């Protein structure tokens, strides 16, 4: 994909118009940087600093938005894209951990299943992602809100700004979506 042929502004407009795929096209703009910054942040944490992912996204925003200020309508828009990117990063990472655990990749020669060490929350992340995909099919707005809040760490106000809705609506939607997802998580399923 060549980013020059699809300017950020145009993509943002298309996304505002409800074309979810446009958000996917925006991802490459932030994805690599987020990953790199996340990695560095984790390193910083090893040396004793407290890790703040919102700082991480903020930093990516400053860097990316600097030369292209006109193109991003506002911070909230950027955050929405970053949230999708974070979702990809976290879910991909969780999936890869899961496949390591299951010995799903041919390159891992495991002689005894007890030798692999179990992952932490990767299973739940993958499950949540599945449920979120289901939610997006019946209620895309709620799925977006969850994505921004859960994967993007955005505040209610930021989400409201990005989606052009009132904070009250965001809160209400989140509460219902949270219950809906929580129920799915507790029952261990990814189905209805």
């Amino acid at each position: 994909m060549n980013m020059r042929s699809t300017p950020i502004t145009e993509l943002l407009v298309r996304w505002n118009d409800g074309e979810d795929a446009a958000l996917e096209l925006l991802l490459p703009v932030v994805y690599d940087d987020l990953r790199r910054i996340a990695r560095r942040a984790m390193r910083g944490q090893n040396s004793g600093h407290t890790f703040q992912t919102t700082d991480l996204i903020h930093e990516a925003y400053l860097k990316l938005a600097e030369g292209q200020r006109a193109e991003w309508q506002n911070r909230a828009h950027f955050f929405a894209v970053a949230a999708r990117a974070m979702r990809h990063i976290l879910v991909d990472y969780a999936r890869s951990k899961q496949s390591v655990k299951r010995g799903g990749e041919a390159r891992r020669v495991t002689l005894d299943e007890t030798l692999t060490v179990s992952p932490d929350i990767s299973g739940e992340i993958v499950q949540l992602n599945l449920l979120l995909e289901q939610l997006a099919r019946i209620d895309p707005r709620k799925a977006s809100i969850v994505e921004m809040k859960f994967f993007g760490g955005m505040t209610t106000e930021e989400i409201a700004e990005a989606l052009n809705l009132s904070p009250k609506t965001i809160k209400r939607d989140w509460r219902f979506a949270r219950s809906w997802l929580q129920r799915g998580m507790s029952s261990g399923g990814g189905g209805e």
Partner: protein
Amino acid sequence: MDEERLRRIESVFHAVADLPADGRESILVRLCDGDEEVEREVRSLLAADKESDGLLDRSHDSIVRDSLGSEARASSTESGIQPGAAIGQYVIGTLVGEGGMGQVFLARDGRLERDVAIKFLTGELSADDKRRERFFREAKSASALNHPNILTVHEIGDHGDSHYIVTEFVRGETLKSRLVAGRIEPDEAIALALQIASALAAAHAAGIVHRDIKPDNVMIRDDGIVKVLDFGIAKLDPSVTSDVDAEAETRVGAATLPGMIVGTPQYMSPEQARGLRVDSRSDIFSFGVVLYEMLSGEAPFRGATNMDILGSVLKDDPEPLNEVIPDVSAELARIVEKTLRKDREMRYQHIRDLMIDLGDARKTLESEPVRRHRTTAEITQVTGDHAMVRSSLPTYALSAALVVVAAIAGYFMLRPAAHSSTVSDIRTAEVANWSSTPGETYSVGSLSPDARTIAFSSSRSGSMNIWVKQAASGEAVQITKDDGGNRNPIWSPNGEEIAYFSTKGGQSAIWRIPRLGGSAQIVKEVPDRGTRPRFWSKTDRIYYDAGGELYMTELTSLMETKLTELAGRGIRPRSLYIAPNESSIAFIDDENNKSAIWVTDINKTAPRKIFESDEQIKNLAWHADGNRLFFSATDDGTFQIFATDTAGSEPRQLTKTENDSLVLDSSLDGTKVLFGTAKEESDLWSVEIATRKETAFAANIDSEFWPDVSPDGKLVAYESVKNLSQGNKIFNGILMIAPESGTDPGTQLVTDACLPKFSPDGRTIAYAKLVGNKLKIETIPVSGGNTRRVSNDGVAPINFTVLPYNRINGADFSWSPDSRQIAYVSDAEENANVWLAAADGSTDTRVTDFGIEFAVSSPIWSPDGKKIAFLTKTNNLEGRPTFSVSLFDVETKRIDPIWSENSFIRLIGWSANGESMFLGIVTRGALSGMPDDVTLSRLDVAAKKAVETATLPDAYVHNMHLSPDHQTLAFAANRDGKDDIWILPVQGGAPKQVTSNNDPRRYFSSIAWAPDGKRIFFGKQSRFSLLSLLTNFD
């Protein structure tokens, strides 16, 4: 569900969500207006609305942190509580103690007008849900103990983010400080001992084991009343990692080392010292040590270091007390001796019996008036002195003044139901045993329909084949004899045939063979996705588990049915099991650091979780009734067998074996359970090449392996693991460092670590440290001290063969010749690549860029430090592997592939001049850890050509190592059925045998050269496999 339904559900949900519970019900029913689906949905959503501790409620930071696998965590022992603060009804007084678990304050209970001790847990413990939960569970069971000799717990509570425990405040001194004044006269010692015993008797009756009885944990109040403290507190020390690691909890170590615990070596029972389960009899041993010390003034087991003390606990019989102290009667000496027997079966079995004997001994004392008179006088004097000391220097002894109860070994949330048989009623009978062969892990077996015969897979003949044996007697008979890796035998319903999975002749299939052997026939070709036949029904169906789903094949039509659709639900279970009723299905799944058993059925009913545990669950077998289930789960780090049912009743523990017990099958009449166990031994030896003289270097009860010799030849670093029986603890070893002479077991450097490697300058040791679920590279100075994290992310999976323990490829990370950098393989960015890290931790950079289709391994620096050689493996479309050797130029960053081969390659090392590399190439073999035919080749780096220099039949390709001068290769090989170490010049020539092994069941692992090239260190390992039947468990 469509959007419209969802809107309706949502509107009802919001309408009632914030209503008070009593008013909500009627409004909910009215709003739903008879629409049952909406009502059901809303109810379940309201329930979910209340659950507030799930993934969705965690902070974004913690999600990202935990997802990306960072482990650093804010930690503090500061409770932030200041004297003078009011917490509930308590006013905080002075800080009287600070321990691993938190701070203890003297406090005033304003409501009840009494002094109390209040302990605040550290932030770290408070922040860790699992441990906090365990802490409270145990604290609560302790608080239920109401006994005059047990410190009373008043309250457990929360204050903001921290948690506290309030206990009785005791003014007095500890038995430890009392013993500083010297030994205690027999009648007073007995009086104190009886009170301690009485506390233990009460705890044992409640199913609680103390685990750490020692003089520090016994308070003597000013009025002479004894209070026993700290039930099981060692279990909860925050330096113990929060991961399930029951073994570490009893592991001994210097309390100063991170990740170490604790137990007090002098007072530890032999079983505790060995890292085995402890039970009430372990308390009896520790009690005996305390009694011995009270009577003699000296601890019975002594030594300069913790290791020496432990050695003494394991080996020495203390001098009989009546020979040390003439005052002590032979009767009392005999009582003490009976508490201190190494074998717990031979000890006092119940503290009550001990109390009766002690009481008798006291009466005997009293009937000797002369002695009594004298001792009473002395006691008066001694206690008088102490009363003075105490009043001038009140000892609060509260650093540990709270009682927390250990979940007893063997009963982690598994309290036996009232009707059930106890472990002691249950019988086990051995059915088959053998010394294992290289590469052999657990055998998998099944019972014939009449339960008189077992079929099992074993590699005891050299390759994995199916064996059959009468349960009652006779020899095992090998019924398949090929190299198909035949496994998971199951019986036909008439008991005449056995089906199993095999990849014989490259054809992956389920096969059948007559029970007495004969010609095998293919039942059905099935791909090998961990395929495991499970059950052959009377209706002639074979059920099997493959790739996380359960399948069934009809033998008549060969029609295959997929019975589960779990992947669609996001579940990929580790293993699945069909019940003999051909309807119920159970599976084991790991999620979020927990193992769980789920049940579903062939109608694809939504799976139901019936049991979940922080412990590991492995293997399961259905009871014939289709209702009960047997499974194996860890209990203090060792797999034991449990029984539960589909209603999710609390599991009942059926075994308490010292080594892992893994359930394999259950008989069709429901009376027998087949299970496998194994016992391993692994020691380190060295051999002098010139004289072929072998010397034990580290040969104690633990397993030692993976040595590395310091560049000056004076020290050897190695790994030590307790109770190793299946390789599952290999990453949790203790790194030891010891003089090469082997006269001193050495000192502990690090825990939860493996693979020590000295830096070329001899100052530092690098090793892989298990952090969370990743192995990270750290360094530590040879003299001990601060560890330093070198790799930010994990080292790509380190794999090893199981018998003997050899690292696959064996070059997971390597030091640069100048000791400044470490090259290693990491999959930090999803794909495995070579990374370069500065040894001081300052930089860590990925230097190759291979995709997911490549396995990368074995980075090795050239002698001049300018290049790093490494190995890649990739599969072509047909699944055939290609192994390639590549060079990375440290200066130009260029990567240059220099040679490829379709056979397995092991990169052994460089020539001294850096012009060529030595490769071990497997020409025949299964790479399972069994000896293979290997050729040694010299790869000319400039010409990119390899020349074969020697053929090494039956050699262990994973255990070949170059001498320090790069002129000689040492390797382990199995010739004439015995493992030995051989050497040969790298340029070719005849191999020369350097060891003289005469035990065909001892396997040689992990060679390490001494720097002068005159001596070789190596491991000797053996393993004994056992299949047994469990009966009388109902």
